[in-house]
């Protein structure tokens, strides 16, 4: 399943990276601790988090994550959007809380 299908199914707002939504999503990782995400997320994962500052972009780019999904309508900081645009990392915004977002995506990609 690609990012575009997930964006559509969960009605996500595309903060940036709208041109990279054809990427295949291989799974996901949930976390707000950067050391945890650096160690345990995998290439092609979507990363579900409430962190909005620009260091999330470095983590996502270093781990080749497919996208960052911010939960509960959190808006990314302006420099986060700028950096993510430069590095080609999509930032998607969900109105749902993390539990629902993770559950819905899990269901979508495992069926």
């Amino acid at each position, binding site marked *: 399943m690609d990012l575009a299908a997930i964006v559509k199914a969960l009605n996500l707002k595309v903060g940036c990276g709208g041109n990279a939504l054809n990427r295949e999503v291989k799974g996901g990782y949930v976390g707000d601790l950067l050391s945890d995400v650096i*160690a345990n997320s995998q290439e092609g994962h979507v990363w579900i988090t409430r962190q909005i500052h620009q260091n999330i972009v470095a983590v996502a780019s*270093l781990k080749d994550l497919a996208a960052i999904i911010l939960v509960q309508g959190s808006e990314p900081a302006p420099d986060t959007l700028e950096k993510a645009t430069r590095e080609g990392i999509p930032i998607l915004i969900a109105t749902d809380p993390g539990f629902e977002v993770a559950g819905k995506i899990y269901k979508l990609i495992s069926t």
Partner: protein
Amino acid sequence: MSYDKTFSVEGGNFQAAGNVSSEIKGILKELGLPRDTVRRAAIVCYESEINIVSYAKKGQIVLHADDQSVEIEAKDEGSGIPDIELAMKEGYSTATAQVREMGFGAGMGLSNMKRYADDFFISSEVGVGTYVKMVVFNLDLKLHPDHPQWVDTYT
């Protein structure tokens, strides 16, 4: 094949934190090293870079890569670590509330370095600085059909 490069890291600059690690990861990929080597080197490099940014005035990351292994040395001029054994404990952190709020300071950095490197060395002097050396071997696990479980452990 043999590759050497030194990078400087600025203390306190959270804007640029991770840039050196991204660059190093790109270089290792370019050199055609095994995916698992690149993945583990990127993890340990990132953690050492973040520690320089968090706890030092300035520092350097020295990369050496060859056919056998990738070595990453992180040296800094900074506060130093009074009790290394304590600092190595998962969850121990002296990071400020502000830094924690950003998702740093989980106290997992040094333990991640130790876990994901094959060889890990640290020494530190209070008020002077800290030196960390990590080695990741280029194990191409596909070469070990007798140990298929390794592939699960390391991918």
